[in-house]
């Protein structure tokens, strides 16, 4: 499939991370247009017209989200969610490290649209290189006088602060992220109020994902109509897919929304290893339901198509598992992660994640009992939809889908008191 990358086109050019290099590739044209030729309302309208949907996982229309911000006397904040921590997802990191100015330009544009004077980039603690890359890019922008009191010689001031997290997965949840910036424990907050109405420091706050913001410059330069020609009608634009697991060329691939999964898998990632067959795919980051190989046969990668297939596009982190994968082991790996990362605030998640991990560890270790699987399913069901944030659902959905779709394999573990793939099995 022929597709000219838009976001990742110049990433192989090391100078793209510098201001000069970025300008040489036409950078900041979109931001300058937003500040010099357009009113904030026009920018919002343009993004709304483009149909851009959030790339952090939920796929909420960006222009519509921006429209929720009340225009009152309180300060307004823009927060870039760069706390990319979803297992299987590594697209934002690439953009931050290789194209920091693309992200900053996106922030400038969003800040213009939202009349924001203070923006934060909350970057995952482990991304040291990314934080340095952003700091350097911000310095360049300030030295040029494009940031600070007057952005692009306009009357608009803007400050951007890079805030490094301390490595908690939950701080990628937007309200926990806000608590963390405020210096509090990273607990997700009750909603409502939603951040757009009352977020950071009790003021209206828009939280956008890195990749979402990186889509803004091309929309500003080439227009909403052009943008809508990419991808599908309801999921327009390009998408960076992170593909990992049992593929020959794991990595980030930018493709239009709605691309067939098989194109991503076979044409870009080189397919599964020789002599292996595809067993299962987690299409949107570790927290979404798993799909069997069969379910991915005609799968297209856009929000609607993946939902129709019974999973979620999420962050676009595609985890591929071939026939050597022990599904019990794979699910245990996920359960261990969510147990470790549950913030512990809500009862069902705090207690349920650990319970599920312990049951699965027994099953995987050959000490499973009849009834374990049904108990596991019931514990997972009891977690869904009963917590403040969706971390509980993020474990429950894999549990329900893994056991639901690969039950025979789980039962074999219990029956044989060992992994039926023993000697062959490996984790993705």
């Amino acid at each position, binding site marked *: 499939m022929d597709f000219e990358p838009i976001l990742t086109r110049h990433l192989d050019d090391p100078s793209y991370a510098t201001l000069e290099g970025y300008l040489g590739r036409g950078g900041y044209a979109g931001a300058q247009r937003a500040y010099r030729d357009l009113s904030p309302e026009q920018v919002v309208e343009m993004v709304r017209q483009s149909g851009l949907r959030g790339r952090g996982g939920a796929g909420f229309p960006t222009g519509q989200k921006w429209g929720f911000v009340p225009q009152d006397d309180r300060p307004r904040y823009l927060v870039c969610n760069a706390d990319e921590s979803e297992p299987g997802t590594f697209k934002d990191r690439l953009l931050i490290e290789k194209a920091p100015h693309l992200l900053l330009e996106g922030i400038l544009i969003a800040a213009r649209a939202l009349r924001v004077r203070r923006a934060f980039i909350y970057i995952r603690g482990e991304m040291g290189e990314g934080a340095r890359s952003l700091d350097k890019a911000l310095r360049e922008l300030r030295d040029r006088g494009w940031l600070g009191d007057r952005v692009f010689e306009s009357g608009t001031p803007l400050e951007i602060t890079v805030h490094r997290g301390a490595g908690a997965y939950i701080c990628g949840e937007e309200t926990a992220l806000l608590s963390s910036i405020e210096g509090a424990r990273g607990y997700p907050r009750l909603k409502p109020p939603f951040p757009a109405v009352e977020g950071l420091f009790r003021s209206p706050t828009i939280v956008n994902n890195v990749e979402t913001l990186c889509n803004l410059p091309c929309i500003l330069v080439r227009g909403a109509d052009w943008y809508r020609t990419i991808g599908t009608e309801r999921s327009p634009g390009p998408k960076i897919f992170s593909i990992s697991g049992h593929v020959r060329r794991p990595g980030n691939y930018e493709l239009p929304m709605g691309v067939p999964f098989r194109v991503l898998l076979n044409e870009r990632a080189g397919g599964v290893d020789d002599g292996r067959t595809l067993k299962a795919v987690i299409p949107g980051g570790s927290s979404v339901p798993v799909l069997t190989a069969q379910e991915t046969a005609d799968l297209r990668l856009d929000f609607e198509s993946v939902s129709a297939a019974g999973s979620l596009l999420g962050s676009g982190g595609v985890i591929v598992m071939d026939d050597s994968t022990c599904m019990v082991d794979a699910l245990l790996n996920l359960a261990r992660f969510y147990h470790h990362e549950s913030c512990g605030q809500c009862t069902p998640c705090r*207690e349920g994640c650990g319970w599920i991990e312990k049951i699965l560890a027994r099953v995987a270790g050959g000490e499973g009992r009849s009834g374990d699987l049904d108990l596991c399913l019931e514990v997972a069901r009891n977690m869904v939809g009963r917590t403040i944030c969706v971390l509980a659902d993020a474990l429950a959905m894999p549990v329900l889908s893994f056991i639901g779709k690969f039950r025979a394999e789980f039962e074999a573990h219990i029956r044989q008191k060992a992994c039926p793939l023993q000697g062959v099995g490996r984790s993705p």
Partner: protein
Amino acid sequence: MAKIPIRANGRVIQAEPGAILLQVLLDNGIFVPHYCYHPGLSVAGNCRMCLVKVAGRPKLETSCTIRVTAPLEVETEAPEVVAARRDILEFLLINHPLDCPVCDQAGECLLQDFSYTYGRGASRFTENKVLRDSKPLGPLVHYWGNRCILCTRCVRFCDEIAGSGELAVRGRGDHSQIDVFPGRPLDNPLSGNVVDICPVGALLNRDFLYQARVWFLRSTESICTACARGCNIWIDALGNTIRRLRPRPNARVNGWWMCDDGRRSYRSFETHRLAEHRIRGADEPPSLARAVEAARDALIGALQRHGAGRVAAVASAAISNEGLCLFRDLAGRYGMSLAGFVARREGADFRFPGGFIIDADKSPNRNGANWILGSDLLLDGIAPLLAKLRAGAWRALVVLAGDPGLDWKCLPDDLEIPLLIDTHASPLVPRASVVLAAAGWAEAEGTLVNSEGRVQRLGRAINPPGDARPLTELLQRVIDPDGAARNLLSARTLFDRMAAASTRWGGLTWDAIGPGGAVPVSEANAHG
């Protein structure tokens, strides 16, 4: 603003706009079990126990996080709600040690109560439990992490009410536990309240630890006398021993709280009590009748020796209204001068961020004494009494003490004390010709007027030790032994008579005071 109708389980109830749905349901007698929600604290919404079904909404929602802004249709006993509660309780119990037999909270534990009512009975959890710390957090509070359900009421209390923020959640997920910061123990003046609001046995009072099974305790409504605020309390006694004091909610006085000084004030009943009357020079403690006779003789003797103008009487402002009334009558009956009433003040009022106040005024009935004896008789401390003694040329002083915080030992050596009525041993005891042992504030009924003019009732939680008698009884006997023997008046009767005789009390009666106290109408008007 107009109230908003809510259809709850088929019944229509009315809510104030913006009210918390859970509180509205509770106020209307529709009980929804909950742990993290507390009416005195911010909403955390973390225990997930108060889930209800709201018509038109896809998921069950926690009723503590719903603000009523439009008419709602709510079900609290729908099958899915019942199931969800049962599931939440199961989650809460999987890592709980179920050590009720050795847990102080047993009997007043919401985990126990709700498990019986809403739980599933048997556990399906067969894994190893998570173990957490057990350690003291401060001088008054011990933490049992294994029992903790992490509702964070205690954390929010320290942040929002005490304002000192000693507590935090440490760790993550099911390894979370409540902890203090290194070198910063939980020792704010309100720390004991975290024990009361802990819905389970995680935070326990070290004073009360293993002292009693709560179902053996007898609770009496009363008032704390540690300062003039008059926090409403429960006195919990085992047999004739007070085991603990707990705040009794009263939005107009103390909210849901009391201070640690007040909480520990019951300990004054444990030491240095006067349990016997005493006649100086006598070997044996006298009977009540003999002591009263001696007291009368001592008063008459002093008046004869020094002359009517040279004998005065003084009372502390810790004495109930009924006692103060009789004190005035006593002075009148014997022709003694009223030296005044001694009140006590320490420092300044202490106002906490959550609005709770510890009064600088340590005399629980300063206002009552003002009303009954007149504010011109106020003596702020012992020093003004000494000045008055010098100016009054009094040779003898009758003392009604009852406030162990007053320092009586600086009274001049040549002052005769014909009669002392007190609750505790003091330097005056050996000096007095006759000492009558009186009941303390938890041992007799009575009324006090708090710093805001609210009349409140003291309850009788325990019997006074030995021969000690309520002050009102002693005074009635000294004033008129024959009358008292025929018809000893109760505190209730004394209050009603007193209140009927003066407009100051606004027509209040003992019954009308009620458990939450009452501000006399005239007084309420005076305060606008």
